[in-house]
């Protein structure tokens, strides 16, 4: 079989500039609106919304980085064409650190307790358990770690993106070997940084609570985010009339399988494992995280996650044909994007005052207090949640189309390109 050198060279048409434009408009507009609606006050709602938005964007891009690393580590053939869009999504990690600067500034400004209670040293010293954690949860060490995570991600994403694009030009097979050589190291770095980032930025919202599952849970979250995002992205590209040779039904089928495996089954498995151990042991320091999530409106959100993030997509994606018809798959993927955002919302927002927990004599008392609105459980949906989310996701969309437009939609000189194009599921 002769190899046509230009087979994979597919360019994004009018969708590219449109995606950049709309993404930038929504992104900057959303962030500006969030700031404006907040009145530049720096309220708790604003910072929670901002953290939510940042974590959603971070999860999507991190999932993409994991996907790229995994394909190189396993020397996968089928995914060569869809790896380039994943590289473009991951490449956003090169600028995403800019969005983290406000959080860094907040922690150093002395008002960090509005988001992270551990910034309040009096609060930390007052509790023996929390005092013991101060060696880890203090602005200096926390900031150094954050810079390491963001730096590692930016370097890894930049390396894989630039090597792959450079190979389009010079066709050097050694680039593939180099990327493969670094992939296992990259995966180890990725695993450590994403675990500790989840601990530092989400788990530490409630500094007393800990779960050894949390890093893995965040991994499942980011995989859900990325796989549903990339299915929608590829469907948009195909819908714009290009890429039908490189992004085939088989690739959608396989991405659907990955969404099913990581975003539905693995997510539920990890979420349940975390819940079951804490439920069984029933130790207050561990259960305090699940208490607000079973009170008031959060209880309904928890059920929405069980049914909408697991049960429904499980039934929808378990059959073969839903993954093979693009229009069906993209609807499920859009639903999963929504569920992914609900999941991050559910991780970031709920909280319950410790004093109220300590004072409560029974579960019924807490429930009725929450139902009557007398107990603050962190349930205050705000327009700021939405505008901040639109801001960060819009910027990720903008960045993704920017990177997509700067190179071919598929790696033209990858040695496994023909394997990916001819790939078929059985």
């Amino acid at each position, binding site marked *: 079989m002769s190899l046509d050198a230009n087979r994979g060279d597919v360019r994004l048409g009018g969708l590219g500039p449109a995606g950049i434009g709309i993404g930038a408009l929504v992104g900057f507009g959303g962030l500006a609106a969030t700031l404006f609606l907040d009145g530049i006050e720096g309220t708790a709602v604003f910072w929670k919304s901002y953290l939510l938005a940042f974590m959603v964007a971070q999860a999507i891009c991190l999932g993409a980085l994991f996907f790229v690393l995994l394909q190189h580590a396993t020397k996968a053939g089928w995914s060569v064409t869809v790896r380039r869009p994943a590289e473009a999504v991951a490449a956003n990690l090169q600028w995403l650190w800019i969005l983290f600067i406000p959080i860094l500034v907040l922690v150093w400004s002395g008002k960090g307790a509005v988001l992270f209670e551990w910034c309040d040293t009096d609060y930390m010293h007052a509790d023996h358990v929390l005092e013991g954690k101060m060696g880890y949860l203090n602005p200096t060490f926390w900031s150094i770690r954050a810079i390491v995570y963001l730096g590692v991600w930016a370097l890894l994403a930049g390396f894989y993106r630039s090597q792959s694009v450079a190979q389009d030009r010079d066709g050097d097979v050694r680039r593939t070997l180099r990327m493969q050589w670094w992939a296992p190291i990259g995966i180890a770095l990725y695993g450590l940084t994403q675990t500790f980032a989840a601990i530092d930025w989400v788990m530490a919202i409630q500094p007393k609570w800990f779960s050894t599952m949390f890093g893995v849970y965040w991994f499942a979250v980011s995989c859900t985010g990325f796989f549903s995002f990339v299915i929608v992205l590829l469907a948009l590209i195909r819908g714009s009339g290009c890429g039908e040779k490189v992004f085939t039904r088989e690739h959608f089928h396989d991405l659907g399988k990955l969404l099913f495996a990581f975003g539905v089954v693995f997510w539920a498995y990890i979420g*349940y494992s975390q*819940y*079951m151990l804490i*439920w*069984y042991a*029933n130790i207050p320091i561990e259960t305090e995280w699940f208490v607000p999530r079973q009170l008031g409106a959060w209880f309904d959100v928890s059920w929405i996650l069980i049914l909408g993030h697991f049960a429904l997509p499980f039934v929808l994606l*378990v*059959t*073969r044909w839903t993954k093979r018809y693009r229009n069906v798959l993209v609807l499920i993927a859009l639903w999963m994007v929504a569920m992914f955002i609900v999941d991050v919302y559910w991780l970031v927002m709920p909280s319950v005052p410790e004093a109220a927990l300590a004072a409560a004599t029974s579960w019924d008392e807490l429930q009725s207090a929450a139902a009557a609105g007398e107990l603050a459980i962190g349930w205050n949906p705000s327009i700021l949640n939405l505008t901040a989310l639109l801001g960060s996701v819009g910027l990720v969309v903008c960045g993704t189309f920017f990177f997509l437009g700067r190179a071919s939609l598929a790696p033209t000189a990858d040695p496994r390109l023909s394997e990916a194009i001819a790939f*078929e599921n059985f």
Partner: protein
Amino acid sequence: MSASTPETTTRPQAADTSAATAVSDRGTALWGLAAQFDTPAAIYAAAKKVRDAGYRWFDCHVPFPVHGLDVAMGVQYTILPVLVFFGGLTGMCLAIFLQVFTNSIQVDLWAIVPVIGYQFEVSGKPLISAPAFVPVMFEVTVLLSALTAVGGMLFLNKLPCLYHPVLKSPKMKRITDDRFVLVIEARDPKFVRSATQDLLESLGPERIVELEP
């Protein structure tokens, strides 16, 4: 009694009519005709033509998987996943029933026989605690799914198959090595000794072999 009357008149007719044409050159019964090819491309093209000619009882015997051959043969997609899904569902329901029943049931059968579950209370949890049941539900679901998958595969493939006419013929030995054989069975409704042989000849095989039952 009338049951002693031999009921030979209601034998299936299909076997008789095909038997009329399914006679080998030696005059013995014929199970099918095999055409041997020497490349995957040749058998791929042949399978398409045989499928388009309307045959359904035919099979391809190849030494390694030939991509796309099932589509060329017109093989329907398997029903196995549906069986596995319902196998898994059965397992899940069974697990829920077993755990709820054994732990919490409390009834008097026929108003006199008391049936009481084990009533294990673990760390003050209710007798029916859904979170504690999930691991067992998961395991039994997986177990019955896996058993349905393996059992269903064997059943749908009619395995174990201790005897097969294709394996009987010494001329067919190279299907495990480097030859590709397409076999049309005599029970196919379209099977007519001469016409089927003409069709196979037109596909350009290396040779055509008669298979005995």
